[in-house]
């Protein structure tokens, strides 16, 4: 089956993808709610900014992250002081894929919140629920299908992330070498084709499993 090195690639990729889901969902829910339910100045600008990574070449996104989080970037010293190292680290890969996946998650969450009748939230308020409780007991549960689709998109986008990751945190075995980077690396080695083929099969299997799982979950949600 897989060599220890290939197992490392797989486990790193899953870790990065799950990390990406975990750090994109909360801000996507907050921003999705804001964009769906509130009007404020520069809303269009904020919306555009959030969607920028969707239309930018991933390499450009990766380079901008490097400028922002690099040692000499504006956020570099802060991260240093906190003892967080992103460069050449799997956490950096999480950041890179999260930024690229964020617009997809945001879009899905926002649409599902927009579909909820705001009158339901008003009804909850008149029954004695605060804004926050209304959000937790009405808005959030009703947008769950959208959250699930968003999570799947983030997971899949993260698994496939190549350009931004390799530009931001490079391609270091055991640290930042995720599935696409590994496949690319193996294909450039004279005897790597078999290993690349095995990782391709693994990629297809994970993607398929994620699709089936999300379909199953959303069906269950719709039934209940």
């Amino acid at each position, binding site marked *: 089956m897989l060599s220890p090195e290939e197992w490392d690639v797989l486990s790193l990729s899953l870790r990065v993808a799950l990390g990406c889901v975990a750090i994109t969902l909360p801000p996507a829910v907050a921003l999705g709610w804001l964009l769906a339910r509130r009007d404020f100045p520069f809303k269009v600008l904020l919306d555009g900014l959030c969607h920028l990574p969707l239309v930018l070449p991933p390499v450009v996104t990766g380079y901008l992250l490097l400028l922002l989080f690099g040692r000499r970037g504006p956020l570099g010293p802060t991260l240093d002081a906190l003892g967080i190292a992103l460069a050449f680290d799997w956490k950096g890969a999480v950041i890179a894929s999260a930024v690229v996946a964020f617009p997809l998650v945001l879009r899905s969450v926002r649409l599902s919140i927009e579909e909820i*009748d705001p*009158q*339901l939230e*008003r*009804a*909850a*308020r*008149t*029954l*004695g*629920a*605060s*804004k926050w*409780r209304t959000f937790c*007991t*009405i808005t959030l*549960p*009703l947008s769950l299908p959208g959250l699930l689709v968003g999570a799947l998109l983030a997971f899949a986008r993260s698994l496939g992330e190549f350009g931004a990751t390799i530009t931001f945190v490079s391609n270091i075995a055991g640290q930042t070498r995720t599935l696409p980077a590994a496949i690319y690396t193996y294909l450039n080695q004279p005897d790597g084709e078999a290993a690349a083929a095995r990782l391709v099969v693994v990629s297809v299997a994970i993607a398929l499993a994620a699709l089936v799982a999300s379909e199953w979950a959303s069906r269950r949600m719709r039934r*209940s």
Partner: protein
Amino acid sequence: MLRIHLEHALADFALSVDLQCRYPTTALYGPSGAGKTTLLHIIAGLLRPDRGEISVGDDVLFSSQRGIDQPPEARGIGYVFQRDLLFPHLSVERNLRYGYDLLPSTARRFAIHQIVELLEIGSLLKRSPAHLSGGERQRVALGRALLSSPRLLLMDEPLAALDQGLKSRIIPYLRHIRTELEIPMLYVSHSVAEILELTGQVIMLDRGQVLAHGDFFRIATEPGVLPLLGEHGFENVLQVELLESPSGAGFSRARCGAQELKIPHVEQPVGQRIFIGLRADDIILSRRSPDGLSIRNALRGPIAQIAPVEEGAYLVYVDVGRRIAAKITGEALGELALEEGQEVFCLIKTNALRLGPRVD
């Protein structure tokens, strides 16, 4: 007591209301677009008015001057919307418990089983709202609002989405709420029939202004109010005294001045005085006593006045102990050769008489 004094600009007119609701059940009547729903939203705290003050008893809910604006959840005002707005992801029982569970037990006015029994929704508790009929959904919505123990219940045409058959089945539940639970209600409707089933106290709202406020049978004949009522309006209001309500007869006998009327059946004690509404259109004038007609009522009296009202139509005022107006065409006026002082009979079908509230 609910006190409202507010100004709020809307797209094409301004809502300007100055009201004190003293009666436990008050209806808010007006054509669509009159600002009724906006007013309810403002009272409930879902919409902030431009300026004014709203209070329930001594509790100020909103005051632009004093900078008070209680959020909806702090106001203790229940709201039954036009659509039932049940939470689709919660079972009927959890919908009912939504507001109830948020209250400390000392603030709960009703037990769940009490409301469930009153509204007869016991068999629905485990179901999902998606599997309820329209009437069941609206009853659950009503129960949900009641269980949040409101000190005032706002109802925004809660029956509008239901068909006629269902409406008449929900109204008894609303009466139970009014009389058994003693929750003050502000009930929005544009159906006079629906309103009169519940209360006689009406606020007439049109284009953001209160046209009249008070007993429906006193204000319904006011010139400003009558056009608003359209086909629901009536020009005549009679006070009658109940003589007899034979069971199964389909009518009751009542005294109107010195004469007698057969009115639709009412369940009231003998001697009770009630208001009766009657449209000028529904009165037939005859020079002779009716004979061989199915009509039940013939009030006799001299014509007091004949006045033209519109193209080819006249109002004939007949003094039957009290002046009532009958509308006839110019042609009929000519053929019958009616003139002031002449004795005529006013023929009235029992079912054309509309029952109003008791005279207290």
